[in-house]
């Protein structure tokens, strides 16, 4: 009895998981598969770029600056023990480009924009705004989901680039201005070790993948929310937790594929 029960519960949760994935896939497919209407879609996209991108800029820039500075300070204290403090530049730049830039930006984005997306769409659903669109013969997937998805996919890589650039600048402030590493050697060693294909392209690939995953989870959680206040608050939490975990797991996978050989 108890054995069959536990097997059945495994089966049940597996079915629920697959159903959820299927629904999420259908939602995304419905949102982005159709040819967008440029005239009507562009204003919606711009508005979402404002909400999702511009409004995340401050937190991203401030965090990027401080993370770059902290990284440089800690790195300096270690490197100076080996007399190789000149390598601070590549250390900061490569850490930011390869890992911290895409990952921390995606985590901050999940907390700032992802949760807001879930709450907004959840609220739209619970106040019947989505049903109301349906009844007006307007597809909510195209009207609501698609512009937010594209705005997320465009914004996050841009934010990750800003984060990385300002983080390297933060490293420069600490390393050169404060700790007195020679500015020329900081930049030249940094430039010698950062490679366009290996580092910058991979940084972009990572952040695009994270952008798709985080935005997708946020939209799905909002779209399939249980339409009451408790459901919305739970969905918001789930968005942050699930997208953070997904980002970290995917980061390992991508890192293994990019740098693991």
């Amino acid at each position, binding site marked *: 009895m108890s054995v069959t029960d536990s097997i059945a519960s495994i089966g049940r949760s597996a079915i629920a998981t697959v159903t959820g994935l299927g629904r999420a896939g259908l939602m995304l497919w419905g949102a982005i598969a159709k040819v967008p209407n440029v005239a009507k879609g562009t204003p919606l996209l711009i508005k979402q770029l404002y909400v999702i991108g511009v409004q995340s800029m401050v937190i991203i820039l401030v965090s990027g600056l401080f993370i770059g500075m902290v990284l440089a300070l800690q790195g300096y204290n270690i490197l100076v023990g080996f007399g190789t403090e000149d390598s601070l530049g590549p250390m900061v730049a490569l850490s930011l480009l390869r890992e911290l830039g895409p990952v921390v930006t995606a985590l901050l984005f999940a907390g700032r924009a992802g949760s807001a997306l879930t709450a907004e769409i959840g609220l739209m659903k619970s106040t019947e705004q989505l049903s109301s669109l349906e*009844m007006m013969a307007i597809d909510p997937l195209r009207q609501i989901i698609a512009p937010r998805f594209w705005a997320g996919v465009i914004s996050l890589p841009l934010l990750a680039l800003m984060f990385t650039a300002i983080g390297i600048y933060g490293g420069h402030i600490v390393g050169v201005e404060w700790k007195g590493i020679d500015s020329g050697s900081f930049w030249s060693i940094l430039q010698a070790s950062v490679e366009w294909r290996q580092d910058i392209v991979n940084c972009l690939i990572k952040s695009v993948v994270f952008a798709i995953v985080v935005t997708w989870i946020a939209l799905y959680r909002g779209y399939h929310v249980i339409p009451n206040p408790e459901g919305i608050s739970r969905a918001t939490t789930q968005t942050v937790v699930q997208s953070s975990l997904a980002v970290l797991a995917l980061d390992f996978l991508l890192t293994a594929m990019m740098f693991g050989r």
Partner: protein
Amino acid sequence: MSHKPMNDASKPLVEVNNLGFSRGKHVIYEDVSLSIPRGKVTAIMGPSGIGKTTLLKLIGGQLVPDAGWVKVDGVNVHQCNRTELYALRKRMSMLFQSGALFTDMNVFDNVAFALREHSGLPEPIIKRIVLMKLEAVGLRGAAQMMPSELSGGMQRRAALARAIALEPELVLYDEPFAGQDPISMGVLVKLIRDLSDALNLTSVVVSHDVQEVLGIADYVYVLADKRVIAHGTPAELRLADNPKLKQFIGGEPDGPVPFHFPAQDYQKEMLGERD
């Protein structure tokens, strides 16, 4: 599409036949049949929690029934493909219980929304239409306000203006009077009746506010126990001797219709105390 708009006034606009619907294990409807005549206000009444909103969503094609069919102007709503369904929905509109105004737009843009999406009219004409609709519900002065700045009754009136913006043939009202103070209730009752007459709309009002509904409806269906228990004109219903109906219309707490779902024992306890 296989249908043509038929202006045969004798033929009902909406036909619901042997409809069955359940949510999980919880059966909501068994064998419900209705016919909604053109150009009239038809009310669907019943106690809370029997799924009157569900019925509207079934008519609008947002939910799919387990059995039976729904035809709007001769078209089976649930056998349409997406394009046909959307074409059909352009001819109907729904006033949601919460109003469901788009919270990120002001009242004017809310009313203009469907026009901008579907009509393809130039902006100056849209502006005139919107102002006319807002004037009809008495909210022209609130055009630039955001929905959050309006009272509940005003939100519902704004939503009503939005619902009639595209001049639909069929308007579905979901609990239009719920939670309104007597003045806004009176305003809404008058609006629904006047709009219906002025635009020759077919209106379906779902409500449990007996007196208001009996005041404006041309024809009434009463739902209880997963089926239609009575139907007729308001005058006929007032005279009916069906005990369930009498209880409902008279608003008597005790009677054959179980108001509380589904805890039978608890209900008996409660009714027992009141005796």
